[in-house]
């Protein structure tokens, strides 16, 4: 190949794109590493702050007890900082949220992708995404002033009917004062609805049209077509979306703190009773945590919350990526 006039005098011209390329690589690489460093740094910070309490009460000491009584820290022999009831509260409220949100999200996603007339699809999905824009504290307000009064008559009936059944009755027992695991679960359902719907929407949109048309051609109704051609292949996508929504729900702080009733002493067996979650106890108590090891134990709560959130999100991502969609 003969050298062209571009080769020799253009030496500087050639290194400019290389310089831009290299700096682009370094800057974006630095940004990526920074994100990883932040995550690792947060975890390290939590471990460092929580370490004194973990040393005193054992690494898993907090997880072995469900009694949180900081006022007894100075005098008690055992561990007054048991966090099992917060783990229970976090899991149960998020679970109730999932029970309500996942079927609703699947239904909404189906409507948006297949059932609604074409003109309505974009506005509908836009409206659902708008739910995610509502601030958490506004959800808390709405929960206290609108949701609880509306729920009261329904739940009192449930207390009287389901609450009287022998074995499972304790789960539905009253009295219902409005602030409860159930109310928090309902609000969480509404808060995670957008994210689950968005993922399900993407998953359903990838169902091949040929299969849908084939089902319709064989005489299936709309619902049967969806059931045969869309839902079966979307199963792992829906599960992944649910788990990611669950991960979002367990970290929700202010809305839950406002409606859950803040009873930290022990686990309440009824879903209509008051309780607390891991984020809510931190939000409530960190300001005046003056007892011995109180603040450190709140860091322990934060650490286990981070561990829980990481586990849930990692599982969710694995499932979603295995379903073939690189959505979240």
């Amino acid at each position, binding site marked *: 190949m003969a050298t062209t006039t571009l080769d020799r005098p253009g030496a500087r011209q050639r290194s400019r794109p290389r310089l831009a390329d290299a700096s682009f690589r370094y800057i974006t690489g630095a940004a990526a590493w920074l994100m990883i460093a932040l995550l690792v740094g947060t975890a390290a910070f939590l471990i460092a702050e929580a370490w004194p309490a973990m040393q005193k009460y054992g690494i898993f000491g907090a997880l072995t007890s469900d009694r949180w009584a900081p006022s007894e820290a100075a005098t008690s022999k055992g561990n007054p900082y048991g966090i099992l009831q917060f783990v229970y509260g976090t899991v149960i409220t998020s679970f109730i949220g999932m029970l309500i949100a996942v079927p609703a999200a699947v239904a909404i996603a189906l409507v948006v992708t297949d*059932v609604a007339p074409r003109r309505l699809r974009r506005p509908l999905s836009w409206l659902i995404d708008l739910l995610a824009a509502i601030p958490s504290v506004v959800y808390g307000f709405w929960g206290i002033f609108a949701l609880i009064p509306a729920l009261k008559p329904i739940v009192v009936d449930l207390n009287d009917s389901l609450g009287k059944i022998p074995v499972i009755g304790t789960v539905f027992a009253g009295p219902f004062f409005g602030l409860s695991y159930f109310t928090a679960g309902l609000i969480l359902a509404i808060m995670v609805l957008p994210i689950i719907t968005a993922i399900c929407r993407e998953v359903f949109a990838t169902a091949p049209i040929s299969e849908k048309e084939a089902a319709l051609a064989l005489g299936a109704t709309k619902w049967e077509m969806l059931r045969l051609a869309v839902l079966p292949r979307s199963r792992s996508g829906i599960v992944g979306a649910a788990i990611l929504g669950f991960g979002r729900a367990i970290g929700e702080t202010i809305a839950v703190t406002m409606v859950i009733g803040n009873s930290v002493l022990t686990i309440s067996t009824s879903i209509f009773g008051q309780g607390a979650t891991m984020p809510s106890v931190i939000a409530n108590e960190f300001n005046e945590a003056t007892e011995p090891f109180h603040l450190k134990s709140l860091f322990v709560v934060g650490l286990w919350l981070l561990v829980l959130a990481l586990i849930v999100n990692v599982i969710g991502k694995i499932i979603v990526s295995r379903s073939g969609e690189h959505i979240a």
Partner: protein
Amino acid sequence: MPRISRTGSIATALAGLLIAGTLSACGSTGSGNSGNNSGGTTGSAAAPKSGGGASFSTAACTSSSGLKPGFSNGVATVAGAAKSLSGAGSTFAAPAYSVWTKAYASTGTQVAYQSIGSGGGVAQIQAQTVDFGDSDTPMTDADLQAAKGGAILHIPLLVGSVVPAYHLSGIGSGLKFTGDVLGKIYAGQITKWNDPELTKLNPGVKLPDEQIAVAHRSDGSGTTGIWTNYLTKESPTWVSKLGGKATSAGKEVAWPVGIGGKGNEGVSGVVQQTEGALGYLELQYALAQNTTFGQVQNADKSAFVQPCLATDTAAADKANFPADLRGDLTDEPGTDSYPIAGTTYALVYQNQKDKAKAAALVNFFSWVLTKGQDLNSQVSYSPLGAPLQKRAMAQLSKITVNGKPVAG
């Protein structure tokens, strides 16, 4: 197979939106109705609505004398004072500080107060990051040991009180409680409003057969400190349920029952939103939110006392504090003394390093203890009683810089 028509889908969507909207609207109007209570008023004889029988002991509360005590025993203004001061601490006292700092600004010194909670105030003065702290409960011996700058003076600044607020439809202010009954309610032993112990205290009132929704603070607070201090003194049930006097009183306790609300406003919200709720609130909040509140039996067990500014001052007048002023104002003797009163302490280092700051501190607190006391009632606090005010002023004379007293 019918195609789903466009108009059909639009109609369904609109119907769904309408239903959602109606539900929210119905929900909010429902809560609006239940939120209206007959408010308790300070000055007038507040006869409760359709409650019958229960009425406040109005004599003490109708007189408005003593609300502007006009103390004049301040220390002479020290020259060379700094132009700014910073303080932090109790939210209980925050409204008073905002009134004081605003009025004091006319002297040329700006005082900035951050209301972060008594615990925060103690922590900051221990670390010497503020010029003065403020706490509703006196510092413990351990706290005093941890203070970096040496000895700390406690200067009481005002008298406030904690009232039992409740929400029962058809029943107005003035329901009678005793300390033991309140202790049993908070220990979970008394669970219904028509419990014999409550009906015995309130013979003329038809108390409903409803569960008591107990409300307490979910965050650590001086208000809780005053309330649990009183319950510890009056209710053996409360003490034994909480495992002894060491753990039954304090800024936070292990509440056996109840709904937690964050801050006075959280408890007030729970009480107003929940039928059958009983919570404890600062008097100032109860008045501002127009909440129904009750009266409590005095320490002598001779009468039921309405919480108001006059009865708080009556309690403060009887205060018998130890030498370092680390006392409490609950269960003070006297017919008109409201038993659940409390104070807030300014926390100031006895040995100051900076002459200008020391002068500014002495001037500011001397003003608060004299002219400032006349402003307390603006934010529904009582001024200090005369004996306590004298002792508080004496604390100021103990402030020294390099060994020399600052006050002239």
